[in-house]
């Protein structure tokens, strides 16, 4: 599926819940099902700055695609980063760099979009795109599989 198709799928999943509390419950389910992040990556080096609760993000580059793993100390933030991973993980650097991440606005968790909310949504997307840019640059100068 393309990045756009995955976003549409998430929006339609969330549209099944009319009550805001059910959306948060579902976000909690999503957080719970995120594959565990290797404890070795829960260090300052992998922390995304700009989030009120700690988020660790790690990436791998295999066969031209980027794979993200992450964790957070709070369920809400972990839910959001899980959604971002579902949308972006497994795509090429170019696809990630060009992705328009408008879906969160459409799933009824609008307040999480405000740049003044320090939950770090903007920082998380920015960090993922920065990884994409770094891998793209690296592969253009001849790098292959690696992590950064």
């Amino acid at each position, binding site marked *: 599926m393309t990045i756009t198709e995955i976003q549409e799928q998430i929006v339609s999943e969330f549209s099944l819940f009319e009550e805001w*509390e059910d959306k948060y419950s579902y976000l*909690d389910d999503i957080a719970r099902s995120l594959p565990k992040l290797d404890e070795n990556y829960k260090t300052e080096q992998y922390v995304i700055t700009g989030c009120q609760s700690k988020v660790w993000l790690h990436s791998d580059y295999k066969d031209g695609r980027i794979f993200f793993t992450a964790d957070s*100390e709070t369920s809400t933030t972990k839910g959001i980063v899980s959604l971002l991973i579902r949308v972006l993980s497994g795509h090429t650097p170019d696809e990630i760099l060009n992705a328009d991440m408008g879906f969160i606005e459409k799933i009824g968790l609008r307040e999480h979009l405000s740049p003044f909310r320090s939950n770090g949504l903007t920082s998380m997307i920015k960090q993922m795109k920065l990884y994409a840019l770094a891998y793209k640059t690296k592969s253009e100068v001849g790098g292959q599989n690696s992590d950064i």
Partner: protein
Amino acid sequence: MVSFPVNKIREDFPILHQKVYGRPLVYFDNAASTQKPVQVIRAISGYYETDNCNIHRGVHFLSQRATEAYEETRKMVQRFINAASSNEIIFTKGTTESINLVASSFGKQYISPGDEVLLSIMEHHSNIVPWQQMCIEKGAKVKFIPIRENGELDMDAFRKMVNERTKLVAITHVSNVLGTINPVKEIIAIAHSYNIPVLIDGAQSISHLGADMQDLDCDFYCFSGHKMYAPMGIGVLYGKEKFLEAIPPYQSGGEMIKEVFTDHTTFNELPFKFEAGTPNVEGVYGLHAAISYLQGLGMENIRNYENEILNYATGKLNAMGDIRIIGTAKEKTSLISFLIGSIHPYDAGVIIDKMGIAVRTGHHCAMPLIEWYKIPATVRASFAFYNTVEEIDSLVEAIQKVRKIFGRSTI
């Protein structure tokens, strides 16, 4: 419930009568900042409608009227906190500036390498960082008095920590995270027996307990207007005259001078020596109205009602089973910090907010204290005299919602 006309009082606070997320606003973030009664709001707009001008230097009518109101408020503050003289009342931006002033000016005058400043582990960052920075500069040391698990100060440890190197004790009257009321009178007496001056951070106590400088006998006392129903940007530093005379000015400029020559300056008398520049006159007008308002209600009545609210809330939260209250000192003001099972306070805060309730989540600018408890943060509900038992029932309902959504959480 004691007879306290809470519903009538609520009519004085326009901001409380609104809906957020379609629910009636419940404001439980009073330890961060209190709301303002119409009397305060009118005092500010009234100042701009009829009295606005610069004070102290104008011979014109408006300037004299505003100057009189400004200086009358200084006397009112003096009476409110029972200071010996109005020269001991310095208007500042707030508690943070008051503490910075003392740290800077007292530090210059009295602190040498190897000296110690005693704080407690429950201090707000604003009563840590100014001392820490001054001590780094001076080669002195900040030491922290520990607390007991229930959030009470370890007085035995305090007695052992005071020594000939101690040059000042700076301690909060009430903890902004725990609600603990510290035995400041006893602390001051102990410190004074070693001739050590004491600064009390009254930011969290003034609106609940009032203050009596001559009874406490503290050497410095600081508080903010905005936590006692007055506007933001106005605060007070009380200092004993002998110390305010002895320490150098904090900032320099207009108002604080007697005479300026091209090569030197002589400084103004107290209290003007510490009030450089055009002061926050509208803030002082607002502070006057806020103190009048508090005096109208009666500090004793406020204390009794807030105690009932605290006891009601504590009982309700304890009955929920999985609520861990951080700070269970015998003597508390009306705030409760808590954790809901193993749910992260940030997650809880997101949901409580959606229920229309303003609480604070985080470290509450007291990171060393949160670290001491080895917890990530707390949810803090802090109550004022305009809060009701019905609002506490709404908080209980919101907590139930939090548990429903994140109840399985092991994160």
